[in-house]
């Protein structure tokens, strides 16, 4: 759908009468939940529900048109799903913050929500006070996750750092020559071109490639380059190569 297009007439747009309140768009396929959230949140003097929708396509259209402060998105929003909808909202470069609401505490869902760039995650077991508090927290620029799931996020961050550290340690095993070869592989050169570039035989170039694959614990050149790109090692190697080359 094109940006700026007017939403269809049946969109449930409820323009706010409270200018200073945090403007919330509610997106959930459950009519009862939409009604409950609108009723409850509109009772809060500093919050106002400006629109409510039951599908991802209309939600995206309305977010672009209304630019709410916060989009409260159901993880099960059809047809795209709440996480894909969150990605689209965040990609639109609007200031709208996204709070995803899941059915129950789900580790994988929480991590997917954070990966999608959403600003917060709650579950439907949250009471109105918790949802209102989360909306206020998001509006002040903070992230929000259920307290009992804080350790999930921290554990994930720790595991990622450890994995990154282990991979970097593998790159640390490479000799200067092997780093040069890796940088040339990343430029798309095969062993013959690498050999010509480094003034070595094709056999030697192949040996360097085989050694670096073993040290990086990968099975192919593509995998080695992918790993290097993922951990920003290629650019460092290439830069080092350029600096070292007279």
């Amino acid at each position, binding site marked *: 759908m094109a940006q700026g297009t007017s939403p269809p007439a049946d969109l449930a747009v409820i323009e706010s009468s409270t200018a200073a309140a945090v403007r919330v768009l509610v997106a959930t396929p459950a009519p009862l939940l939409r009604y409950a959230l609108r009723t409850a949140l509109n009772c809060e003097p500093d919050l106002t529900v400006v629109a409510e929708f039951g599908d991802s396509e209309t939600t995206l259209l309305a977010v672009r048109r209304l630019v709410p402060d916060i989009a409260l998105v159901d993880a099960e929003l059809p047809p795209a799903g709440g996480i894909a909808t969150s990605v689209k909202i965040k990609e639109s470069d609007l200031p709208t913050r996204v709070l995803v609401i899941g059915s129950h505490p789900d580790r994988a869902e929480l991590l997917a929500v954070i990966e999608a760039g959403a600003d917060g995650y709650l579950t439907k077991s949250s009471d109105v006070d918790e949802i209102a508090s989360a909306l206020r927290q998001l509006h002040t620029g903070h992230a929000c996750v259920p*307290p009992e799931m804080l350790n999930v996020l921290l*554990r994930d961050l720790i595991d990622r*750092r450890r994995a990154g550290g282990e991979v970097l340690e593998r790159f640390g095993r490479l000799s200067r020559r092997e780093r040069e070869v890796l940088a040339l592989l990343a430029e798309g050169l095969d062993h013959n071109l690498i050999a010509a570039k480094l003034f070595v035989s094709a056999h030697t170039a192949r040996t360097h490639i085989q050694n670096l694959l073993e040290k990086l614990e990968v099975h192919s050149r593509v995998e080695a380059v992918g790993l290097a790109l993922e951990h920003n090692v290629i650019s460092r190697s290439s830069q080092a190569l350029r600096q070292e080359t007279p």
Partner: protein
Amino acid sequence: MIGHSIPQQARNTKLKRGRGAHILEDDHDRPLCRANDTAAALWELCDGRTTVDEMVAAIAELSSLPEAEVRDDVTRALSELAIVNAIEWLTPRGDVQQP
């Protein structure tokens, strides 16, 4: 005590979660201390493998606070958890340090 030590949940301690405030209990269900959300998450990270540095780095990244500030808070919280015997300190070799 912290230095290069690694915190580990004391044997048979458990976390009873409440709304906003949680209670750490011993194996006889006796309360050891109250814990806020962050302290509870911190206690859950005390698996005898995760270092204080790793905890500090993760919390700093998640909260966007400076590591030095986070380190002070984490150190203080872990010290308090150790005082009430909710955690114990392991040496890098895995031995429990005596208080």
